[in-house]
């Protein structure tokens, strides 16, 4: 049992009318691990979760949860899982306690055990004070916690959380992260969907990126980041002499700069923004920035700004999907007109796995 994956999906597919919500999703979560399913709105994350939690039948492919087939053994699957969706699935007219006791009874704990379990969970999720109030009066964060508590009543070995922090304020989000981390420490196998890259990064052992109903990348956060490259130092050169000798001066500075920083580079140094910005792939170490600035100073190149850029899952995501999430796409669209964006040194116009040599930025061999 310990070696078999607790959640498996093979080629899951679901169609709603003309819309292919999930086209081909294959994933696997080993026991006690956390899989982050990452994707923009409408990518097929929730539909995948609904199929794996037996809420909707797949049109194609298959899945197993806790070793049980999600179609043929749907009833038994339901005994092994907890599910918390984007919308709270609570009874607004019942109190916090009554909600959890009802779930406990329906999960066949027996009334006495259901009561004890409800009290225990309410205390753990800091809801004891609100336990006797009807859920209608709860805040968004309280509802989300109670909803998660309801999913944990029967101590399921496998838990599905569909966008557990969407719509929460920052404090609520932090609290939810802590709760999830505690669950994971207790050995729960968890599948978590999110649109937040930092969330997947913080909570998941491995990540599956979904877009348009298909898996477009799979791996650990580190592996995904490697696909974009490692850390780089982004050096913005001073353009004090731009008036004097124009582009020629900038080019000369860039050439001198590239040569000066070459010995610190872990790969080809690139220049961007007409020679004003140097992007230096580096292996981060102590005093690296000091050394780079000193060596530039030694060849008479003045520096305005230096920044270490660590690729975030954001970068991975945009490289893979060509810019998916609404808000971030807007941000991206405003980018080029705003001049240099030292925090996003790579041009990402949407080609999946484009070889680095094809990037529009100039490449300067070292």
């Amino acid at each position, binding site marked *: 049992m310990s070696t078999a994956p607790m959640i498996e999906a093979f080629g899951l597919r679901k169609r709603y009318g003309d819309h292919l919500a999930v086209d081909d999703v294959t994933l696997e979560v080993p026991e006690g691990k956390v899989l982050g399913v990452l994707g923009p709105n409408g990518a097929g994350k929730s539909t995948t979760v609904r199929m794996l939690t037996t809420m909707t*039948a797949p049109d194609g492919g298959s899945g197993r949860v806790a070793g049980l087939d999600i179609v043929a053994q749907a009833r038994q699957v339901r005994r*092994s899982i907890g599910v918390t969706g984007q919308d709270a699935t609570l009874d607004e007219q019942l109190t916090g306690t009554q909600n959890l006791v009802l779930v406990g009874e329906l999960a066949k704990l027996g009334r006495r055990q259901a009561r004890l379990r409800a009290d225990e969970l309410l205390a753990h999720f800091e809801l004891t004070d609100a336990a006797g109030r009807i859920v209608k009066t709860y805040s968004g964060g309280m509802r989300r916690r109670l909803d998660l508590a309801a999913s944990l009543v029967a101590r399921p*070995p496998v838990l599905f959380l569909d966008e557990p922090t969407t719509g929460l304020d920052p404090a609520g989000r932090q609290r939810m992260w802590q709760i999830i981390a505690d669950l994971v420490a207790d050995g729960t196998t968890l599948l978590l969907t999110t649109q937040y890259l930092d969330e997947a990064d913080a909570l998941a052992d491995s990540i599956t990126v979904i877009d348009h109903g298909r898996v477009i990348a799979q791996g650990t956060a580190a592996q995904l980041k490697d696909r974009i490259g490692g850390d780089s130092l982004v050096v913005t050169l001073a353009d004090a002499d731009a008036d004097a000798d124009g582009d020629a001066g900038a080019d000369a500075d860039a050439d001198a700069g590239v040569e000066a920083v070459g010995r610190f580079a872990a790969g080809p140094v690139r220049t961007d923004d007409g020679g004003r910005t140097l992007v230096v792939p580096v292996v981060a170490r102590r005093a690296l920035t000091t050394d780079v600035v000193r060596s530039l100073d030694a060849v008479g190149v003045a520096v305005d700004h230096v920044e270490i850029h660590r690729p975030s899952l954001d970068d991975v995501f945009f490289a893979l999907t060509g810019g998916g999430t609404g808000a971030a796409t807007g941000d991206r669209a405003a980018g080029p007109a705003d001049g240099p964006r030292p925090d996003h040194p790579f041009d990402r116009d949407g080609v999946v796995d484009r070889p680095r040599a094809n990037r529009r930025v100039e490449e300067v061999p070292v």
Partner: protein
Amino acid sequence: MSTMTIDLHSGAEVPATGVPGAAARFTDWCYDVWSLTRRNLIHVWREPAQLSDATFQPVLFTLLFIGLFGGAMSIPGGGSYKGFAIGGLVAMNLTTAAMGTAVGLSSDLTSGVIDRFRTLPIARSAILTSRTISDLLASTLAATIVIATGLAIGWRPGTGVGGVIAGIAVAVAFSYALSWFCACLGLLVRDPESAQAIGMVILFPVAFVSTCFVPPQGLTPWLRTVANWNPVSAMAGACRDLFGNTNPAALQHTFPAQHPVPYLLAWTVAIIVVCAPLASHLLRRRTAD
């Protein structure tokens, strides 16, 4: 929060995958129905206004109808209008009370709680059955209130307590069947408001084109035919017979008018046989995606 050591997860072993025996499954099913019925009753407790069809309305209608028509109407076969009306009032109130099932079920379907139920190891039929059972309790209450109001204003049954209980029992049984019909309505419409509206449109004519308030002798021929075969008339007639009150419909030479109790029970069984599986099917379809 994490300073507390709490057992969030001790039972990590996967539950047995064997299919439990039929007897155990039935016990589980009864237990689910009981838990869900209690939940519906908590709703009523929280918002007693929901129950006004079963409490306030029967009192109001009993007083209004007897007060308004009592003086004007003469009953074929003799007897007081009061004696005639109580059976009709039980029938009418229990017919319209069935709408509660459509509204309650529709409310559950439009709230997220249905998704919680679905992730739990319970049968969909338990969700439907618990809803109809809580409505059965509401209609029993409504019938009792009509009887109590009647007694308060001077109505008297011609039979004993046993006859009154028997009358209420057959009326409540038919109302229970109507709940399954209304469950289907609730599953077909989009929201509780539509459920209420559609329920009114269907059940009000059914309740009123009957012999609940007007003896069949006073109706035009085609309305009389409809009213005579309407099961709601049979419900009123069954109550009048069992309560020992005047049943002018019995003077009609149609089977339902002559034998209201068997006719009503046949309808009761037929509606349940058709609507219970249909409601399960509709719930499965409604919650499939």
